[in-house]
């Protein structure tokens, strides 16, 4: 059984490339955040303006025919919400590449 007996220290090959668990988790969180933000933005109507949290609703006074606005308390994410979420997700994802080191090469 020569293969089982051989320890990594004794192996002439560099150690197999592995990814730390926290990097995988953070990468997943980044992707999840980007997808979540996109889905919320899309589900709330693809609003391409600023985020609104009190939505204007136009009404007409029947006697004077004046068009006036009342505000409905409701959240409508805008492009600023989408871009902010995508940037936050990208930063989380990119952070997993920081401080990574390649396999140690055996000294010459």
């Amino acid at each position, binding site marked *: 059984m020569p293969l089982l007996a051989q320890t990594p220290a004794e192996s002439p090959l560099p150690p197999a490339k592995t990814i730390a668990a926290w990097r995988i988790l953070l990468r997943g969180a980044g992707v999840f955040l980007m997808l979540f933000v996109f889905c919320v933005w899309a589900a709330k109507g693809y609003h*391409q*303006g*600023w*985020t*609104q*949290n*009190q*939505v*204007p609703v136009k009404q007409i*006074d029947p*006697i*004077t*025919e*004046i*068009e*006036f*606005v009342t*505000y409905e308390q409701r959240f*409508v994410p*805008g*492009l*600023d919400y989408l871009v902010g979420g995508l940037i936050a997700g990208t930063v989380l994802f990119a952070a997993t590449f920081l401080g990574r080191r390649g396999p140690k090469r055996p000294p010459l």
Partner: protein
Amino acid sequence: MNSILRTIAFAGFTIVSAVAAPKAYDFKDPKGVNAIQFTLDSLLEPIVGTAGAVEGEVMFDATDVAATKGKIEVDAASLKVPNTKMTEHLVGADWIDAATHQDISFEFAKLDSVKAIGDGKWSAVASGKFTLKGVSKDVVVPVTLSHLEGAFGKRINKPELGGDLLVVRGEFTIQRGDFGIQPGKNEDKVAPAIQLTFALVGGAPKA
């Protein structure tokens, strides 16, 4: 005979004076419809908001529209846009500074270029003083006036009250820099011009 004629003439004069005298229209609307809408272009889309706390009085006489005069005031703190954070910035010290300069107002003493455009409808030009953030400037505002006779009571579901309504519509543009609102700053993000649109109703209950 002379005294009878004098009495008739006096009575006639009194009636004509009472009918022709300008009425005071109160622009604090009980139904809360009155608002000034403001629009200013910005990076993503135009920022559109309203200022709802409108008050004021306009003296109007349908037989002498050119003599119409009055003052409309808006509480600066009532400015509202669809995003509460943006509203806070807008009424904050860097922009409108509603805490220090509470009133936005427009005062005019007469109307020019009055033209009848329909039954009880006129177009005119109101020249007056517009005050914002403590700065007053002369502005010229094209307006249309609609006089709705007997509609005051009807509008508040009390037709027995009678009274008239005066609807004033108009639109004008100001430069925010002229009123000390971030002059020359952030013009790439928020346009220097602010468009103001209004449709206001004033009521004069039957005396």
